[in-house]
């Protein structure tokens, strides 16, 4: 019955033969490897994202005044809404991870070399689309992080010379982050980027079929434009296997595992956010992007300020241009990573840099801890047996928000140095100067402290030294305490 229906359809469509041909196209025996499954896995997760995305769109309200409430509705009221949101949110994380693994594998195996340059180029577009989906998706999770994340995007765009202000308005769809902004990002997330994504996935797969799957790179087997195609043809005809089922079976196993892992992760971890309501009047917020942009967020804190505008605007362009250019820089030669040490170093360094920046971003040592001054107690040892003046200083350390940037006993901000051993590093006069005039990234407190308060602060900070290490003293004026 089914066979008959299939035959009936194929008689009209006439595509059966080409599908069979595509499925049974020969691949090098060495390529039917577990290393080659990541592209298929990314594709599978993308299809799941389309399905869960369509599900979410049936409930999500894409307007600034209702989006946040509809997310809460999805989490708590809509039957299984929490699970679909979890699948979509974690699916996004899975997809980014798989795209990066796929990219690393293709890069290490030299698969981008002649004649597969265009396959790589299309892949870079797909990477950018994936990141674009991630960012716009984070905006659709319309919470405080989304609101202020848009603010950061606008602030970066606003640094464009001459046309900065106009660019901001085009991105936001108006003069402020509001309804039009969300609608713009909804359009991008649901219509524009998926359309590009599908088009380039088709191109990417077409090229993989047309040019054949990259063979396992062997050290010493050199890619030459003149001979490669003939060599590859010989390889797949003499030592090839049909893609289906020889390579496809591993793809299928990997896809099954990835989807199972995604479903389990989503079930255990639950939906991602939303956090606080996107009301700009709630300023008690600490905005952070999701992890895939957290490394950029960290870089913006750590770049020297004078390079910042230049790097923010040119850095992404140069990085993307370099990614596109890779197959044209080294389109021939060795494929094996064993003979391409600099490529391996480059890849490892890139991933390490991004990883470290993400790690730093998770605790942002450069940011003041806004609640440390009122919420973090002074260690008991630091106040036991102190004079009233020293205790007054200990109180001022809290009351003047010093703790927001300086830690005591390992707790408090990390922007400035820990104060536990200040007395060993600065003489009393240097402490006074540092407090009053600031410097080295510390604000000057001259206007906001009375002489008596400075005296108390210095008295307390002078006790901040380990028992076996005396406080620093000036050789010029050794014994005299600061006086006014």
């Amino acid at each position, binding site marked *: 019955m089914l066979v008959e229906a299939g035959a009936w359809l194929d008689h009209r469509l006439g595509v059966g033969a080409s599908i069979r041909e595509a499925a049974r196209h020969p691949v090098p025996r060495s390529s039917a490897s577990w290393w080659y499954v990541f592209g298929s896995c990314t594709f599978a997760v993308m299809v799941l994202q389309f399905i869960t995305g369509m599900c979410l769109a049936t409930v999500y309200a894409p307007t600034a005044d209702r989006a946040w409430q509809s997310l809460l509705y999805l989490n708590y009221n809509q039957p299984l809404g929490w699970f679909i949101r979890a699948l979509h949110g974690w699916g996004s994380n899975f997809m980014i991870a798989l795209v990066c693994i796929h990219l690393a594998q293709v890069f290490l195996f030299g698969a981008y070399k002649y004649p597969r340059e265009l396959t790589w180029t299309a892949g870079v577009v797909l990477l950018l689309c994936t990141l674009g989906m991630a960012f716009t998706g984070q905006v659709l999770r319309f919470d405080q992080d989304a609101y202020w994340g848009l603010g950061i995007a606008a602030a970066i*765009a606003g640094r464009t010379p001459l046309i900065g202000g106009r660019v901001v308005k085009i991105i936001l769809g*108006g003069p402020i982050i509001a309804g039009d902004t969300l609608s713009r990002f909804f359009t991008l997330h649901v219509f524009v980027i998926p359309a590009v994504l599908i088009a380039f996935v088709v191109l990417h797969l077409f090229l993989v079929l047309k040019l054949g799957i990259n063979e396992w790179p062997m050290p010493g087997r050199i890619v030459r434009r003149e001979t490669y195609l003939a060599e590859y043809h010989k390889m797949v005809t003499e030592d090839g296997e049909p893609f289906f089922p020889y390579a496809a079976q591993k793809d299928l196993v990997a896809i099954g595992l990835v989807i199972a892992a995604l479903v389990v992760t989503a079930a255990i971890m639950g939906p991602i956010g939303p956090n606080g309501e996107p009301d700009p009047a709630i300023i008690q917020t600490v905005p952070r992007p999701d992890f895939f942009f957290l490394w950029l967020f960290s870089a913006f804190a750590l770049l020297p300020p004078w390079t910042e505008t230049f790097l923010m605007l040119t850095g992404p362009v140069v990085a993307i241009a370099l990614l596109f250019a890779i197959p044209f820089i080294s389109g021939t030669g060795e494929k094996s990573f064993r003979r391409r040490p600099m490529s391996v170093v480059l890849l490892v360094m890139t991933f390490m840099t991004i990883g470290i920046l993400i790690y730093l971003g998770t605790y942002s040592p450069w940011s003041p801890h806004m609640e440390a001054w009122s919420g973090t107690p002074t260690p008991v040892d630091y106040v036991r047996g102190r004079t009233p003046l020293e205790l007054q200083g200990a109180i001022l350390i809290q009351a003047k928000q010093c703790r927001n940037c300086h830690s005591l006993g390992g707790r408090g901000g990390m922007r400035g140095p820990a104060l536990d051993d200040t007395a060993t590093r600065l003489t009393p006069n240097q402490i006074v100067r540092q407090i009053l005039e600031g410097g080295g990234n510390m604000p000057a407190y001259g*206007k906001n402290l009375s002489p008596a308060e400075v005296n108390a602060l210095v008295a307390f900070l002078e006790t901040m030294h380990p028992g076996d290490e005396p406080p620093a003293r000036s050789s010029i004026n050794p014994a005299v305490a600061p006086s006014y």
Partner: protein
Amino acid sequence: MNEAAKPLSRPALAQPSRRAFLLRLGLLFNAIAAILFAIPVLGYLMSPMRRYAWVSWISLGKIEDFPEHQTRLAIYRNPYTKPWDGKTANIPCWVRRESGAIFRVFAINCTHLGCPVRWFQESGLFMCPCHGGVFYSDGARASGPPPRGLYQYSHKLENGQLWIKAGQLPTLGEPLA
């Protein structure tokens, strides 16, 4: 696609026939139609850029609501809103009344990357939660990565009220007037 089209179109275009004329006419019509289509689409999408009159004077409330030598958070409804903007059109700002009629009104947005700065009256500083920018009570940059002091709104005192010229998100490209 080009390779496939060439052998067909070349001979067709080479000889002045009705077919060649129709092909050219078709291309011309489609080019004109594409432009006619593209202009309104682009105009529609770019319209936020074209309009410049986003700012207007709005009141932040009575002058007496702002005590001298203090900095207070004020919230205003953006003058240009859509009914579905919801709370996103409620924009906060910091009002510093130095003394008497001397006011400073700061945007909430850090000049580094736009995060909301918080006022700490005990130390007289604005601190940013994102990358550690710090500003003095007069808005001047104190430390951290911000390239300039806080954005300030133009303001005036009229009818016993404090008015500011507001309506757009301040950025380095278009700081507040």
